[in-house]
């Protein structure tokens, strides 16, 4: 490749980067602009104002909402890993009666997006008195469609494990549960990582469900809270909103930069199987 072609390709790549990188840059820098300057086209604030970042916490119980999102995402992720790895292992490595039928049954769950079932689920949770609690946001992703996808991914992984390992363990007198826990699970770390990343992000981004189920401000999750930074006339307080958005995005971005390979391969892999 000639130097000219290379230069041209780099130029194209750099231009293409703009719509991917600029919004994140704009979100963070604009969050430090005072309200008077919010629509100025300058790339950096003329003077950095930390006031919007403080206002995020005075306008809403934002720390509480942050905690809500974080603990829900962690519980859903851990729960999904347990449920999906156990079921995925059984479907992949154990022969049992009804296996194919039951697997097909679980698999059809992939065809049914959660938007289709939100009306009846709302009624179920309503009759259980669980509306305006975090239970729907935990139970539905942990056991519903996303978990079905996770089960499928885990099964596809476990099916590739060589049988000799398990036979050797069996010779040593290990039972199934022990083989699962001590042999199969440690080997499944890449698949578990992929499922964990996908599940965490799914929960972290969940929007329709919280909007439908949650009505008290202290129980809001982040996506829902982000839309609520308005002044008395329902006008958007852009700098405060962008500060809150930055706080939501930056931690995940940092983890992504550190573990970009796992993120990209994991998400592409889970996307592929979906």
């Amino acid at each position, binding site marked *: 490749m000639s130097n000219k072609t290379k230069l041209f390709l780099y130029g194209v790549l750099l231009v293409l980067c703009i719509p991917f990188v600029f919004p*994140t840059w704009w*979100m963070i820098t604009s969050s430090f602009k005072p309200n008077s300057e919010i629509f100025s086209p300058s790339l950096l604030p003329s003077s950095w104002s930390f006031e919007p970042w403080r206002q995020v916490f005075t306008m809403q119980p934002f720390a509480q909402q942050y905690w809500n999102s974080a603990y829900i995402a962690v519980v859903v992720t851990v729960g999904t890993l347990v449920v999906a790895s156990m079921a995925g292992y059984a479907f992949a490595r154990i022969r049992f009666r009804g296996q194919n039928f039951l697997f097909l049954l*679980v698999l059809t769950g992939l065809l049914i997006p959660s938007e*289709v*079932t939100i*009306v009846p689920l709302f009624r179920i949770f309503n009759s259980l008195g669980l509306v305006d609690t975090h239970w729907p946001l935990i139970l539905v992703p942990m056991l519903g469609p996303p978990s*079905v996808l996770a089960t499928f991914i885990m099964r596809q992984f476990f099916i590739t494990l060589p049988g000799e390992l398990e036979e050797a363990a069996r010779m040593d007198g290990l039972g199934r549960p022990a083989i699962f826990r001590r042999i199969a699970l440690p080997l499944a770390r890449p698949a578990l990582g992929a499922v964990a990343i996908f599940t965490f992000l799914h929960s972290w*981004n969940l929007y329709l469900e919280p909007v439908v189920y949650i009505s008290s401000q202290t129980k809001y999750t982040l996506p829902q809270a982000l839309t609520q930074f308005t002044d008395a006339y329902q006008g958007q307080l852009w700098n405060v909103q962008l500060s809150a958005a930055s706080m*939501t995005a930056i931690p995940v971005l940092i983890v992504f930069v550190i573990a970009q390979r796992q993120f990209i391969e994991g998400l592409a892999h889970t996307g592929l199987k979906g």
Partner: protein
Amino acid sequence: MTVGSSLTRRRYWTTRRRDQLTAYVFITPALLGALAFVFLPLVLVVWYSLHEWNVLADTFNFVGAENYRKLADDPNVPAVLRATAFFSIGLVVLNLALALLLAVLLNQKLRGTTVFRVLFFSPVVVSLLAWTIVWGFLLQDNGGLNGMLDAVGIDGPNWLRSGGTAMVSVVIVQVFKNVGLNMVLFLAALQGVPVSLHEAARTDGAGPWRVFRSITLPLISPTILLTSIITVVGSLQVFAQISVLTQGGPGNSTTVLVYYLYQQAFQFHAFGYGATLSVLLFGIVLALTVLQWQMRKRWVFHEQ
């Protein structure tokens, strides 16, 4: 006696039986979850669609096919379906074209492609709401994009508030959000195309475009089909972007099916009709999946 029974018990609990028991225990949570949170509500949604059901008025009456007649007569439905189709098709076409372009660029022997890969992928991990909000901010009438256009002497439209640009804007925001995923899938597929085939075609005198069209494209067609299916089904679920950027407007030009369903069920409290719209959504997803199977058989070159 005790010896005998423990012997028979040991014989009953063979390794195979114990394995089976373990398997049933292992799949129970997933199975119960799928039954309770996928299949039960799926059956219920059909049942509810046969009812007139208003939560506020506390009515729940069997009305047969009334809601389906309402669906056929609803003047909003054609517009909603048009908006849904426009969003889905626009998203798939732009997303796949851009993903393929990026993947081809990143597949060149250039230094630093890893950095570009990370940059192109980064919106995928930015919280959906954060991404949508900052784009909403950029696309305001006096926002960043029009500020920049102004600087080069172009008077930009009010992107999210005018009928001609609102839907296009929403599509573009979503394309940049998730195109990184398809890009990575295409990149993997491109790297699986044997170099020897390219070289053979080149020595036969084929130009780069010809090689791409006649060799690369057919070889990655399974990936193209797969990504288009994932992208279409994903596009039917769009809600947050609409809710934040346009609230379905102006008029109902960006009211896609899920947003309409939400409005009917949770804003107007017409749960029975909301359930009917859910059934319609399910029908569309199902039809697309069946279509996928058909296309897979016919169209895709050499599936491994």
